[in-house]
């Protein structure tokens, strides 16, 4: 699904969508609660998932996703719409908030992610694998983390990912392949291997 067009009826042209977004931005600048509510309803969950994947705490991710909209409200008067999707603008705010958080707290995500989430019997493998991958993700560069989160966790297209990260569509596949190679190297680290052995031993 093209999430940039999610506020628009299916099948509308790109120009029509841009016109609609331009109108939405205009109304948002007028503090139209309906627009802000619609943006929140449409984009909050994805911003939450992005934040969760980057900072690893569900509560903090919920706060950060909410904070994106508060910051957007603060900055809406200075937002000059030129066709770049609103969602990309919101992700830009989220990226900045995550970066601020990393600067403010260098201890962020040094602990295992989601350690308090107890896997249920049927989903044990899935949860352990997710935690392994999320832990390995921390060692990647911010750009590498972002491309994996946007492409795989949020199922964004190359075009959407390029728009959000401010890169060309040709650059995204290269970044993605390098990120996956780096992630594979991290997953092959001894700690991950030991965890995998323990997991398999526990399941036998």
């Amino acid at each position, binding site marked *: 699904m093209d999430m940039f067009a999610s506020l628009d009826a299916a099948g509308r042209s790109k120009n029509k969508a841009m016109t609609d977004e331009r109108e939405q931005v205009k109304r948002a600048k*007028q*503090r139209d*609660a309906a627009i*802000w*509510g619609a943006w*929140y*309803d449409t984009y*909050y*969950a994805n911003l*939450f*998932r992005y934040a*969760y*994947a980057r900072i690893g705490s*569900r*509560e*903090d*991710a*919920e*706060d950060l*996703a*909410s*904070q994106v*909209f*508060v*910051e957007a*409200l*603060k900055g809406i008067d200075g937002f000059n719409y030129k066709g770049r999707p609103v969602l990309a603008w919101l992700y830009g705010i989220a990226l900045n908030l995550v970066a601020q958080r990393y600067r403010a707290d260098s201890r962020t995500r040094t602990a295992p992610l*989601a350690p308090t*989430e107890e896997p249920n019997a049927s989903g044990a493998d*899935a949860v352990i*694998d*997710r935690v392994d*991958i999320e832990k390995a993700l921390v060692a990647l560069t911010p750009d590498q983390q972002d491309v*994996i989160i946007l492409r*795989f*966790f949020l199922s964004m297209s190359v075009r959407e990912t390029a728009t959000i990260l401010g890169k060309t569509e040709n650059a995204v*596949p*290269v970044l993605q*392949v*390098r990120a*996956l*190679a780096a*992630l*594979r190297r991290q*997953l092959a680290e001894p700690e991950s291997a030991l965890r995998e052995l323990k997991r398999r031993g526990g399941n036998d």
Partner: protein
Amino acid sequence: MTNRRDDEMIRALLECERIVAGGGGLDDCLSRYPSFAVDIREHFSLVSELQALELPGPAPERESAGRSALLTAVAASAQRRSRGASGLKPAAVVAGALVALTLAFGAAAAAGVPGIQSAVESVLDELLA
């Protein structure tokens, strides 16, 4: 891994991505780049794992509390703009907005949403600016 081999592997993986995206099979790719067979297999295995992962969603009550806080901030911001346009600065406007914010915060707290504090603080900043 040397930088040169690393670069060659990246090129091979990019080409494999193109082959697979174009409807080709993994075997086509493996036969073209046999020296990177392990990397290619691991790469596509990881892609499959990542595509199968599901992140948790937000708690509905916290999502709802964040929405309420945002709409309160939007209303407060609209009032401030209106006040600025008329040149008036009625304390009652701020007081009213603060009461609304307190009610929203109370509702969030009653719903067990303590983490909404940062959003409320931002709204207060907006109100008191």
